[in-house]
């Protein structure tokens, strides 16, 4: 019954949701909890079909609150457990995710962003960045990978399990409805053939052994009596987070040293940015890009270095300033002017970015597209 879901490696052509499912299987994920919401449903469809063949488990819960809390339960039992959601489901999931953050429980969550706020569209956006990075009533001690291709989806879903279990923070694969539903090629592989060892899991609760005879009862809580108690716990977790951040951050950049214009984008918008920038660069323009792959922790050091010689930035996102405000926060003190292409809930094509870059490089500030970002993130100055 339990053969390996992915042997060796091979090129395939499938939707993003399917790629996520195969990555989870290849990573040795053992149990999925979930609740239907477009556009991530197919992750559950593919998972449930593979349950008997690979000896996996699944529970469809009554809602996303439950999906998040049951995933916590699965992780506490020592299983590689995960869930997936989107939009309003992501909103609901902040309750359990705050608990996971507080208690350092390594849940893995795949987010397929859709239009917001509220029900909006079932289709696409990049409007869940703030929610995924900083949701809940905490300090955003979360690890967030933003994917921009099916290969990313596969690679980072596998990596998410390792990152989560190694560093013990809730870990997210942040994608979107376009990635979920589109079909393109990728190479799926058994992590072992690429030298990737899966970080072992271990139970928090219900460890083997008899209480009193080498096993102590475990008492987990997320409640404290006085402010100082809480502060001490947070100080410790924040120190942990900041210590491991350099090991976790990932980014990609092109031609950032000494460019006239640096385009900053993440996720699927990055694809368009990369295409536009490379084309303009091949025409001799002094243009580059910076792509944060981890939105949390943000690759601040590398970003500041990339920006240091840039004369201007263009931030492009399918949201109204959610990436922009992270950019501004991480650039505090820099005086580089920032223009912003903010299109909440709609896709951004290479042509749009290219046109805007061309106008900016031609010194045409009257181009209506992208206002200069002022002190308030996202709102034209």
């Amino acid at each position, binding site marked *: 019954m339990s053969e390996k879901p992915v042997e060796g490696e091979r090129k395939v052509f499938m939707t993003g949701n399917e790629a996520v499912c195969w990555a989870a299987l290849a990573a040795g994920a053992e149990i999925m909890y979930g609740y239907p919401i*477009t556009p991530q449903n197919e992750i559950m469809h593919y998972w449930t079909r593979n349950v008997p063949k690979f000896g996996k488990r699944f529970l469809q819960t009554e809602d996303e609150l439950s999906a998040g809390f049951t995933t916590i339960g699965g992780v506490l039992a020592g299983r590689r457990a995960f869930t997936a959601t989107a939009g309003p489901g992501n909103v609901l999931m902040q309750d359990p995710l705050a608990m996971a953050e507080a208690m350092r429980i390594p849940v893995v969550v795949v987010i397929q962003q859709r239009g917001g706020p509220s029900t909006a569209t079932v289709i696409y956006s990049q409007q869940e960045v703030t929610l995924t990075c900083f949701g809940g009533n905490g300090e955003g001690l979360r690890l967030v990978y933003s994917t921009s291709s099916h290969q990313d989806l596969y690679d980072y879903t596998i990596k998410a399990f390792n990152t989560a279990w190694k560093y013990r923070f809730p870990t997210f694969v942040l994608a979107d409805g376009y990635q979920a539903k589109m*079909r393109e*090629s990728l190479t799926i592989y058994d992590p072992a053939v690429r030298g990737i060892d899966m970080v072992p899991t271990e139970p928090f609760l219900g460890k083997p052994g008899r209480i009193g005879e080498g096993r102590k009862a475990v008492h987990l809580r997320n409640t404290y009596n006085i402010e100082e108690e809480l502060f001490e716990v947070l100080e410790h977790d924040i120190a942990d987070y900041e210590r491991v951040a350099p090991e976790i951050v990932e980014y990609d950049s092109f031609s950032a040293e000494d460019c006239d214009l640096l385009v900053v984008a993440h996720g699927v918008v990055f694809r368009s940015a*990369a*295409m536009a920038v490379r*084309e303009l660069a091949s025409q001799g323009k002094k243009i580059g890009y910076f792509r944060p792959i981890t939105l949390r922790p943000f690759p601040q050091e590398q970003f500041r270095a990339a920006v240091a010689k840039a004369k201007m930035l263009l931030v492009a996102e399918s949201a109204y300033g959610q990436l922009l405000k992270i950019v501004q926060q991480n650039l505090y003190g820099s005086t580089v002017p920032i223009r912003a292409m903010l299109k909440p809930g709609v*896709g*951004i*094509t*290479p042509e749009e970015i290219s046109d805007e870059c061309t106008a900016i490089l031609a010194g045409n500030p009257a181009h209506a597209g992208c206002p200069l970002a002022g002190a308030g993130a996202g709102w034209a100055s």
Partner: protein
Amino acid sequence: MGRAVKIAMAGEGGQGVQSVAQILMDAAILEGKEALYIPNFGVEQRGGVTIAFVQIGDEKIGAPKFKIGDIVLALSDRAVRRTQMYVGPQTLFVYDSGIEGVEGDLPKNAKQVLAIPALEIANKKLLPRVFNILIMGAVIGATGVVTLDNAKQAIEMRLGYKFEKNPELRELNFKALQEGANLVAGMGGVIGEGIPVRSQ
């Protein structure tokens, strides 16, 4: 932007638009090209216009959707109206000549507007069921994104199991493919390189 050909195909549910997109994708993969396909999707399970956005090229595809298509194909009156937004000055707009009441809705800003008697040919010369393969042939004829050989191989991969039971279907499908290619090329509706009308 890059060399990808941007194809939008739209029709009513059941006309086989998404199936054509899938097979085109398979053919592109066989051809060793970069390809990306995404269907439109919204809340309704049934009843809306169904659209397939297909991009095939030599470089990795940028955005999953595009604003303006190189070729836009509409197979119903609602599809004609719905796809106006994807038409630009360089777009080849193709629609089935059997669609009624759309003269006023046809794009005025396209490079070329072509009415092809796809359904008529499918009904009279072939079989109604291969209408969508004929459409696929038309797309290939107009754009040359894949060779007819690879298209046939892709059709075999997807529908081969049906051909096992009924070998005549294979010839029918391949004939539909060629008919579609001939149709468009013969009417001068070619963008990029297209394919030679007389292939194999």
